[in-house]
């Protein structure tokens, strides 16, 4: 299973949503959101996607997760009450990538002379007192 870049594209908005309109996108590439390739970031919508992020970004197809052809919706309830926002429907697109941002970071360090496999390189950054916040 290849690592994937994920694009959540808004395919419909039922009701009033202050952030998203049809065609808005959020793009993920493990371990982050790519800001340059994303529109608005609604925290609630991101949380709704949270449980599915890890399997999808690591290449498990949406069908196997019970998401049909790759559809997910936000948390907002389709209710006609004043505090309700519109429900946003996203289409999930998976694009296989050869290198994640972490791979690129490791490559960059190797080019700067910090050599070794991934674990060896990471070990160089391990703190002496990992339990202390500062």
């Amino acid at each position: 299973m290849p690592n994937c870049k994920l694009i959540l594209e808004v395919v419909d908005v039922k009701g009033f949503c202050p952030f998203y309109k049809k065609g808005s996108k959020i793009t993920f590439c493990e371990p982050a959101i790519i800001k340059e390739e994303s529109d608005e970031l609604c925290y609630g919508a991101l949380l709704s996607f949270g449980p599915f992020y890890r399997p999808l970004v690591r290449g498990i197809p949406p069908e196997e997760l019970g998401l049909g052809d790759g559809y997910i919706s936000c948390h907002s309830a389709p209710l006609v009450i004043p505090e309700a926002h519109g429900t946003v429907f996203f289409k999930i697109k998976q694009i296989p990538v050869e290198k994640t941002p972490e791979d690129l970071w490791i490559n960059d360090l190797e080019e700067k002379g910090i050599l070794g496999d991934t674990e060896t390189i990471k070990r160089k950054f391990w703190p002496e007192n990992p339990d202390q916040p500062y």
Partner: protein
Amino acid sequence: MVRNKVIMEASEINGTCPIYEIGDKIVIEPVPGKNVSTINLKETSAICTRILGTSLTSYTLFLEYAKPSQEDDDKLPWQTALGPNHSKCPMVGPPYTECGYVLFKVYGVPQKEG
């Protein structure tokens, strides 16, 4: 400080859900004397892992500490009291996904001091 019991109650199901029926509850209770809370497994119907970590569960800590407002007219609806907030699980529902979505009503129940 007295905290609230928080209840997530399935109030509507669009399509079919293999886990929840209307009226099913997830009950979250504060641990007395500690700033943590637990899911009451005896009073809870089921816990679907697909709602863990979503907006649905992010309401719970807020509602645990929320206090009913004395000035309801001056406040926004979600600040006035203990809910209910309405939120749904991430499933889209038929015909796009086999599982339907569940709409939860999330609210706080004040506990007696002592």
